[in-house]
């Protein structure tokens, strides 16, 4: 159970970290590479504050062993919307003021990203099913749902434009990259 060097890919770059078998991905992100956007909330995968995506799928990093991420692409809130431009989900959270204290926000956005990767045009039940594991104690759920819908619409338009090859919106390429 000794700490052993492990190479991970986080937000598009390779990082060397040390992890024993039980060390969580959240611990590695927060304590070894100073990515504190993913939050500690429960350590049992019940609150969603630590959510990141692994190869585009939302996972609870607090119960995901760091070593399970080897060979996969880890995306955290810090890696979303790089290059100074916000991802449509981030912009939608701002537009709807879908937060109060903000502590759950990174996890909410990453869970929503996992949802939109799998279902670009989610219905109400899809949103509930994907987001049920994320707690917002301030109670901004309805705003978050509205923000997810807005971001889905923006991404759908971009992807249509990209497919049709017409007047590609700036940032569309970036958005797709971010949603790996």
């Amino acid at each position, binding site marked *: 159970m000794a700490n052993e060097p492990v190479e991970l890919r986080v937000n598009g770059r390779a990082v060397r970290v040390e992890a024993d078998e039980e*060390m969580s991905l959240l*611990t590695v992100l*927060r*304590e*070894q590479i*100073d*990515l*504190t*956007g*993913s*939050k*500690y*909330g*429960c*350590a*049992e995968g*019940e*609150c969603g*504050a630590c959510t990141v995506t692994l190869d585009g799928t939302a996972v609870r990093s607090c119960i995901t062993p760091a070593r399970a991420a080897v060979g996969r692409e880890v995306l*955290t*809130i*810090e890696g*979303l*919307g790089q290059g100074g431009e*916000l991802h449509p989900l*981030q*912009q939608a*959270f*701002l537009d709807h*003021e879908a*937060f*109060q*204290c*903000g*502590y*759950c*926000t*990174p996890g909410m*956005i990453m869970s929503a990203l996992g949802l939109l990767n799998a279902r670009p045009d989610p219905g109400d039940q899809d*949103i*509930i099913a994907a*987001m*049920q*594991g*994320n*707690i*917002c*104690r*301030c*109670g*901004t*759920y*309805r*705003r*978050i*749902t509205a923000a997810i819908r807005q971001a889905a619409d923006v991404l759908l338009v971009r992807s249509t434009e990209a497919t049709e090859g017409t007047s590609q919106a700036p940032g569309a390429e970036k958005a797709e990259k971010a949603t790996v």
Partner: protein
Amino acid sequence: MSTDLQKDRVPGASQSGGGPTPPAAQVAAEADAPAIGDWLRFRPDGTVEVLAGKVAVGQGIRTSLAQAVAEELRLPLERVRTLLGDTALTPYDMGTVGSRSTPVTAHRLRKVAASARELFAGRAAERWQLDPAGLVVADGSVSHPASGRSVPYYELIEAGERGRLSARWSDDAPLTPPEEWSVAGKSARRPEGHHFVTGSHRYTSDLDRPGMLHGAVLRPPGPGATLVSLDTSAAEELHGVAVVRDGDFVGVVAPTRHAARKALSTLDASWSLPESEERTEQLHVSGSNVFDYLKGHPSGPGGYHRWDGPGVFQVGSLEEGRAAAVGSGPGYEPGHTHEARYTIPYIAHAPLETRAALAEWGADDAGDEGVAGAGEGVGGGIRLTVRTGTQRPFGVRAELATAFGIPEEQVRVIVPDTGSAYGGKHTGEAAVEAARLARGAGRPVKLIWSREEEFTWAYFRPAGLIEVSSAVAAGGTITAWEYHNYNSGPSAIRPPYPVPNQLVVFHTTLSSLRQGSYRALAATANHFARESHMDELAHLLGLDPLEFRLRNLPDGSPEHERLRAVLVAVTERFGWATRRSRQLPGYGYGLACGTEKGSYVATCVEVEVERETGRLRVVRVVEAFECGAIVNPQGLANQVEGAVVQALGGALFERVEFEGGKIESNRFSRYRVPRFGDVPEIEVVLVDRKDLPSAGAGETPIVGPAPALANAIFDACGLRLRDLPLAPTGRLANT
């Protein structure tokens, strides 16, 4: 007649989120920041920094305080920044509690900013030898349109006073009436939002300092335990780990939190719990029988409620009131007294960011992140700096000073914007523990409580038992109201209805669990009991619950008028009359209203109950809220919606389970809070009263849903639920 039960005479209980009401000396100190420069700093770039001892815990106070200052200083909002919650930089503040930030702090900042505006206008007039009446103050400058002259505020400040503008602010400074507001009164974006959505905001738990270690604290089996033996040998062998022992306090520090918690698990300690009759008795108390225990264990003054007593409000005579009980209805015979008993359990705040603190000793240069120039004005001699998420930075400073026997002036508490609190972060446990570890380690130490620690070592909303006995006169007005509240607390304990014969008593009791403030304090419990009872009376009398309330809110009082206004607003939006006339099987509609801390709320709820299974679905909640002149409509709507959602948790699901002195609901998988799938349609109706001063809004909106839900459930299926939570597993309790 005694009027001792006035909320402003209840130390510690009427302040929401509250905590103790400060002694008179502290209240004086709170106002003792006489210079404009104590509150506002003018920058050469034309921006203004607001200094306030409030803290940001999600309520959006940065924005509404900035709006108040921008309005009076005639500045665009984006040129006003806020520096909050730093005991070395901001004026004394008793805490972000009791919905006081808007009515007290924002109001004071208005006066300070208006004083500055007047000062600058006067100085410009003097400089230009002009009549001040011909000057215009706008956009951060004073100008004289006739001559085209203009000067920014900053240039009207002498070089010697640029550190701190020592001119005094005046309580009489002319404020801009809400009808003329151009910055306040409009929805404004929260500047911190960008940092939230990018993950770049650093909460206390995210902070780092050079040389910092991570701490973890060994928890005894119960409060008051003493350490009998301790074997630290396994921990000491771990790389980089040190054990800190200070009396019965034991903790470890390590280079990472992971290592610290691992080291903690290797400590071998045995403890001795204090033995007493009370403690033995407590072992037999559980979540299900705690109410009998509370009623059977009166306590004197002291405890969390700090009740000085007598907790009695009396008007008229209950005997006369009951003699006048000639009302009648399908369930009400003349002479009848309606009696009912309601219970409210302990619940947990469960803030998503657990308690956390980063402490360092001997650091005058403890650094300042976030706000440019924030380090200015910090005097030397700071021996202990603690960053921590608390609602009472100055209170925690006092706790630290006491714990370590040093003067308060040598302690600095800084509060980064915090991952919520809801009245649950008034105290400084984590701060004191981190400081103890840092002292033992000789290095900065960060301590983040685990979720289990947060659930088991923080404090809870008090559990309570409420007994009500009432009688109704002809015409459906209440003539007698006897009300006993055991332990919940006295906030909003008196009815808003002018019942001529009342006996209202708050009984302090022993508490099985550690208890403290919670958003809206006992106003939630008292509204649940009172507004459930009102609904019961309406049904006994065969009256529409809205009509019954209106009959008991006669004209002629501004308070009644304000309560009637939200009742009318909410029932109109909800479609109260129409829906009730076309009621579908299994559906029910409930109503509740109330007032607390100068604001008014009314709530309508629609539920669906599946008769066979008792499964409850909350379909729709409409809440009308009035808190005087609205400062930030978007922020207010967010607060009201959030309060409704949080209220659903306390109303439907939440209860701290404990037995044999052990808290069993110690994690989220054992303590159900509202989630996406629990959220109904929510509509918020904001009633803007520009003719009335702005009141706080963080708390009172939470009191409406619980009774409205209970009333809707009764309407749907005839089952009267008087014990919270109403549907702990998603099905109605008692089914």
